């Protein structure tokens, strides 16, 4: 069975660490990083990249449009 794998790219500089994407993620892929970005916010990142399915839920709820989503079929 073909498996779908996803990956997200978070624009670290514009992320404000609001945590909405982390809550919206159905596979617990995302988390807030312990480091902060230039504005002092704990930015979102893929803590568990293997779990990402590329469903785009995180990007849908992101108020700052800083998430780009990729999805590919892995044979």
């Amino acid at each position, binding site marked *: 069975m073909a498996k779908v794998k996803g990956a997200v*790219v978070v624009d670290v500089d514009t992320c404000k660490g609001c*945590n909405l994407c982390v*809550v*919206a993620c159905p596979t617990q892929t995302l988390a807030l990083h312990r480091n902060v970005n230039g504005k002092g916010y704990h930015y979102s990142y893929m803590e568990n*990249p293997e779990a990402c399915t590329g469903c785009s839920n995180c990007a*849908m709820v992101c*108020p700052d449009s800083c*998430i780009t989503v990729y999805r*590919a079929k892995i044979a």
Partner: protein
Amino acid sequence: MAEVAENIQNIIKPENLVYQKSPVLTDKVMHYCPGCSHGVVHKIIAEVIDEMGIQEDTIGVSPVGCSVFAYNYIDIDWHEAAHGRAPAVATGVKRVFPNKFVFSYQGDGDLAAIGTAETMHAVNRGENIVMVFINNAIYGMTGGQMAPTTMVGQVTATTPHGRNVDLNGYPLKITELIAQLPGAAYVTRQSVQTPAAVRKTKKAIRKAFEVQANKKGTAFVEVVATCNSGWKISPVESNEWMEEHMFPFYPLGDLKDGEKEDPEALKMNV
């Protein structure tokens, strides 16, 4: 670990792209607080404009309030209006450019407080405009004072013991009032706290623009939103607070879906 990183790099390729920032949004970083609903609604409007291919033909009217700088974020033509007067300005713009898509973007302090008269009369005239109304139950920009839409018992800077109906009156359901007016074609109330809600709101805004294209009357989209800074809780807790306290009073769904009343049917017999 290296293998995982390599797998990710294999997925992150242009041909695998499924979601990216709308090209109608500018690169300017939004000034909104972390987790603010305004950003999501801006994004939805930008996506709808992009999907309909009307970037060159859309004119927005921005209000006074947090979203006063909306013209910096969505790459279309904009007009700034005096506080509460966005529907009046949108009326003028639409009458001068009847083939353009005109929408006003207003918060509850703008649309439901100082601009109530303009709002009611613009809808009552059945102007072919879209009105997007962000209802976060508080005056966000000025520091969290009570708004007409503030819930009974809600603590704000000007109601430190909670909104008291005897003193402050009842919360204003302006969307229900507007749905009664003959000029309204499409009146709906949506929210943006979950991915499913965001998709529904996007459909509603798309439909509102289509109502305008078909000259059916005024399309009014209320978005029940959060103001975590004003409410003094985290963005995630704000969404829960909104679901628990605002949705029972401001129920989601379409209030009117049709077109403005036929003036011929209302004409008196002489």
